[in-house]
């Protein structure tokens, strides 16, 4: 247990001192503020860009618009930045040869994988939920009294989807000695999820739904129980990814 805590601490120090945590956290805070503000002021902004004489009729913004911004920004910008920040998890250590000392000092190989996963998930958790909190507070402030359905479930789904991408990235980063390898591996995985959308039958199990059905959950168009299968697949992918990363790293020559 002690090596696990020690190495996880080392990972967190690394994210701190190399400014990676700072970058990730700042971006998520910025997104947190942007979501409600964009939703609130979008009609006014659009109006000011319109040439004179032309009028557009937009419905007044609602809290649902603010949450729509949240899910759009976190999936498109937030996750993207997180993946890039975490892409070198293992491969950077391979490239520099820094693990040789740790392993020859008796650090169990599986601890390396578990610590890497723990540290990156912690960072993701902190950034994601801070962003959520900021958006939540401002949305409540701008649209007093308005409520949306299933907010907790919906945000939890996207959070788990993020953890799944991190775990897939961990396999990619363990497999390849170059950080682009891990990045491409994860992109390939996402591309496959998008391709699976084409088949209706398989799409019922597609974990991608956890990241793109959120608004339907909030507006009540979709009941959370419909996403049971994707949720199950998502959790399975996380567990299998961690196990396979451990197995791959056991065989890896460093």
């Amino acid at each position, binding site marked *: 247990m*002690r*090596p696990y805590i*020690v*190495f996880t601490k*080392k990972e967190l*120090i*690394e994210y701190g*001192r*190399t400014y990676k945590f700072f970058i990730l956290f700042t971006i998520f805070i910025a997104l947190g503020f942007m979501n409600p503000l964009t939703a609130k002021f979008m009609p006014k902004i659009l109006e000011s860009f319109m040439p004179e004489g032309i009028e557009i009729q937009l419905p007044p913004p609602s809290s649902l618009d603010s949450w729509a911004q949240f899910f759009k920004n976190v999936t498109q910008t937030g996750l993207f930045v997180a993946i890039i920040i975490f892409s070198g998890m293992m491969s950077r250590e391979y490239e*520099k*040869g*820094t693990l*040789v*000392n*740790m*392993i*020859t*000092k*008796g*650090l*169990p*190989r599986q601890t390396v994988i578990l610590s890497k996963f723990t540290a990156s998930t912690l960072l993701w958790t902190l950034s994601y939920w801070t962003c959520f909190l900021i958006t939540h507070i401002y949305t409540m402030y701008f649209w007093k009294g308005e409520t949306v359905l299933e907010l907790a479930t919906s945000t939890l789904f996207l959070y788990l989807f993020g953890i799944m991408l991190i775990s897939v990235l961990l396999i990619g980063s363990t497999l390849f000695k170059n950080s682009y390898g891990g990045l491409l591996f994860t992109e390939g995985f996402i591309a496959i999820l998008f391709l699976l959308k084409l088949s209706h039958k398989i799409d019922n199990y597609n974990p991608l739904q956890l990241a793109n059905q959120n608004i339907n959950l909030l507006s009540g168009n979709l009941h959370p129980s419909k996403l049971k299968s994707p949720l199950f697949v998502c959790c399975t992918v996380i567990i299998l990814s961690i196990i396979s990363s451990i197995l791959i790293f*056991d*065989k890896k*020559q*460093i």
Partner: protein
Amino acid sequence: MNILTIENLSKSFGDNLVIDQMSFSVPKGSIFGFIGKNGSGKTTTMKMILGLLKPSRGTIEVCGERVKYGQTDTNRFIGYLPDVPEFYNYMTAYEYLKLCGEITGLSKKTIKDRRIELLGLVGLDHNNKRIGTFSRGMKQRLGIAQALLHEPKLLICDEPTSALDPIGRKEILDILATVRGKTTVIFSTHILSDVERICDHIGILHHGKIILSGTMQEIKKYYHQDSCLIEFSNIHDRDRFLQATTIENLESSTTTDRICVILKSQALKRMMQEIMSEMIRLDIVPVKIEILDPTLENLFLEVVK
């Protein structure tokens, strides 16, 4: 007692056979010089001892325990200094040693005591800068400190001096010499003067095999071939001397370089007598007559021929 025993070890990468049926052992308490040309398989052998590479065949035993690839318990006996040690650049030397100590499972107090002692030994105490700003020599010294942290029985150094300037090299060799007796050291290199300075045992690796191993004295004695250097005051004297029949009849090999002549023979005393009597007869006064010590360099060049 042997700290390290290697038997019939082979390793190939694809079709390329790097280590071929290698066998040797390192006795306890020695400083073992592991000598070989670049690419002769020194690093590969060391990585196999550490369980970082999987041998194709053969066995390795450290302190009587067999080394297994992957999860290596034997590494608790070993301290390792890689050829280019890499650390986490964002840490200070002090923090890095703490991390190493905690991973090894040392107690807090031991870590603190050892850290202060070792940083003093390698001259990095009072250095609070991050490792990223360290010079190569400083990194090499930190590398020794981390390798010695858990008081290993065997210290493996992969070319610790090859990339350093003369002062850096001296510092590293001095540190290695201070651990003599407490820790067995295996020290790979192609710098032979370093080996002569601190090693008491050597093994010469060539084409994946140990072609010569033993104690330094034994080897020098066994390969003892005395040679004598004579420096003349001019070329005319040199030629007269070489044309003398007694010298021509000497059972020896001769190398000439302008006014110098080197004569080699198995029977030094007889050769010297004949050289001197010949000089008196020819009335030649040499500038210098010197008996040359056998050097490791000559020996190395001879065995890898």
